[in-house]
């Protein structure tokens, strides 16, 4: 596979994700303003708008294996992880911008970000 091929495949994947995103936006009028930004091994692998009525399961590949996150009514939660201590699962649900779930061993993180809303939360 040449470098060009890789760029092409990457481009197609990104386009597919964008189109998927556009589809969701059109399908759902009602949504809250958060976006779940999913990172694996330091790279953004996916951005999911958090719709109140759109539930889904996300599979995120990390160095240890697949981490599974579930989005239910705008809340994100890690439900399965190949890591040892399962700290990411114990972190529970997040739904506000500024909140995040991080699985250090599997190098996966989910951060809720939103434009025009809060940048961070003091607690």
């Amino acid at each position: 596979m040449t470098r060009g091929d890789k760029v092409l495949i990457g481009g197609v994947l990104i386009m597919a994700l964008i189109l998927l995103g556009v589809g969701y936006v059109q399908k759902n009028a009602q949504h809250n303003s958060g976006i779940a930004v999913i990172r694996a091994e330091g790279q953004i692998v996916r951005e999911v708008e958090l719709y109140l009525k759109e539930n889904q399961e996300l599979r995120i590949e990390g160095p240890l294996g697949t981490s599974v996150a579930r989005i239910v009514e705008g809340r994100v939660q890690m439900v399965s992880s190949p890591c040892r201590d399962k700290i990411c699962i114990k972190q529970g649900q997040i739904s506000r911008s500024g909140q995040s779930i991080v699985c250090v061993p599997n190098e996966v993180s989910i951060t809720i970000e939103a434009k025009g809303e809060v940048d961070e939360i003091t607690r």
Partner: protein
Amino acid sequence: MLLSLFVVFTITGCSLIQQEYEYVAEEFMMDTFVKLKVYDADKAKAEEVAQKALDEFKRIELLTNRYAQEGTAEYAKSDVIKLNLAAGHSPVQVDKDVLAMLSLCKKYNKEFDGAFDVTIGPVVDLWGFGTEKKSVPSDEKLEERLELVDSNKMVLDEEKGTAYLVKEKMSLDLGGIAKGYATEQAAQLLRDDGIKKALINAGGNIYAIGEKDKNIPWMIGIQDPRNPDKIIGILKLKDQVAVTSGDYQRYFEVDGKRYHHILDPRTGKPASNMMSVTVVADNSALADILSTSFFVMGVEQSLAYIAEHPGVEAVFVTQDKRIIYSPGLEGVIELEKDGGYKIDQGR
């Protein structure tokens, strides 16, 4: 403890001519997540200074960690462990930043008549905070341990660079300042390297450098103490810090009663009138000390202090579900209207 680093670059360019890079670095430290967002036109520089700032966090963590296991490299590097072991025996040569922290703590111990005290270690250990074995101690045992809590018996020698806990079994717990001090140091490093825009989140201690955009402040939510999914309001900050002390961060329950980790050094028991205190100031180490002290002292005494100290503001959430904020926050704070709290502006 330092397990990983997540790194991301995005171009957030707000003008067509100048691109601005956002560098995000996250690391588990000080028993919490430390996240830095650094913005600069020069990508390599943003990365380099963010790393420097994280290294500074690590350094302060190592110096102040008092839970390291004997025999580990961390154990040998902790000045606080050295000081605690030498209590009642001899002064200890400590890092200048440890001395600076202790000196600041001593100052506020005096200022607040003992409502803030870093020599609280023996009492924290009795309750078991910081360990798996938490329990409610008897009054007799508390009395015994309170004998050891006294910042006047912490002797600092700036010239020699030493600190000394005079009585045997005395011990320091820098939980009320280390994170704030490290955040302040990290922010100063970023500034010294010419960073004009950055956001540091050290487990809920927020440091906002610059503003989010031209004339647009950073928007910092304040956690609802009884609902982790909600915020009670938003603070609009520019070159300021926000630090919160809450009864919901570390606690355990026995027979339906909540015992949290913010102990009144004068009674040895959890301070009882507050759910959370958020301090806004321009120095993170100070804000950390103040949020703990205000939590212990209560609304009236804290507001009196604020009235005499320009640049310091606070939001209090009391046990009887009232939100009180200092007058200087008018226009800076936006509170949620239907949050289930009664809102008062303090005088």
